[in-house]
């Protein structure tokens, strides 16, 4: 892609963070519901956020 790399990155970061939180947070929440625990939602959210940031780094950080 051409010169708008920063701009692209900005929007992609937003999308990745949302889907990371949604997906892994959702898994954690389902796990909590299933097992009757309370901490899995938090774990899922953290994993999701971490994964999303890792993905952003993979896509835009390494060069």
């Amino acid at each position: 892609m051409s010169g708008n790399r920063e701009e692209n990155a900005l929007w992609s970061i937003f999308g990745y963070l949302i889907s990371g939180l949604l997906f892994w947070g959702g898994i954690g929440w389902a796990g909590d519901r299933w097992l009757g625990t309370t901490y899995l939602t938090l774990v899922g959210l953290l994993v999701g956020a971490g994964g999303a940031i890792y993905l952003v780094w993979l896509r835009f950080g390494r060069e």
Partner: protein
Amino acid sequence: MLASVRSATEGDGFVPPGTKDFDLPPIIEGVEWFTKPVLLVMVSVVLISVFFVLSARKAAVVPSKFQFAGESIYGFVRNDLAKDIIGHEFMRFVPYLFTLFVFILTNNIFGIVPFLQFPTMSHVAFPYVLAALSFFVFHYVGVRKHGVIKYIKDIAFMPGVPKPVYILLTPIELATFFLVRPLTLSLRLFANMFAGHLLLLVFILGGEYMLNDSLLIMKLFAPFSFLFGIALTFFEFMVQCLQAYIFTLLTALYIAGALADEH
């Protein structure tokens, strides 16, 4: 349209604006689907067509003001959005992006046009359809360019990552491309238009209520509410333009992403 004009003073006390203010009755009784937003969409299509046909019909080397206005909008979408973002293949997508931008812009601005005063996009179905269209376009473009399998593989598997990490990353990638993108695209537009209209209703209806109150002090402060409503109308104009721009910009970015050789 008068049937849908609402007053804050009906019933007892102030009736705050809410979702029911977006539930407009059918314009012709018995024709359930024909409500104000539907009418506005039709009006927008006619307005846009007439404007651009007229501005392009007598195209001259030295443009008239009319032609200049039409060409500025077209030039903006073509050069600042399509060309800058998509690159050398941009011309194929200019018609879609241009239509998208002008359609959303016109329908947004209906929110502050006197007597119309309703942003069509505050009914979530319209942004959903537009986002679905953009979703279809950018995936179609990607599939046509790379083939289904390579396209999905490019999305789902980031190169240069140890295999077990894919368990963590692949769901995020797939969710981003197939769920979050169309959803954020539509909801961003919808929520901005919905909230903006609500905000204007609060101040205008609040002002009206205060003006009709029996207490003098309330009457005295009513103009401030109206003033704020006017100021927010200008703010809304900005938001309306911005949202049309962002929707088009993101569609162009997604198309560019689908066309890119590797992520």
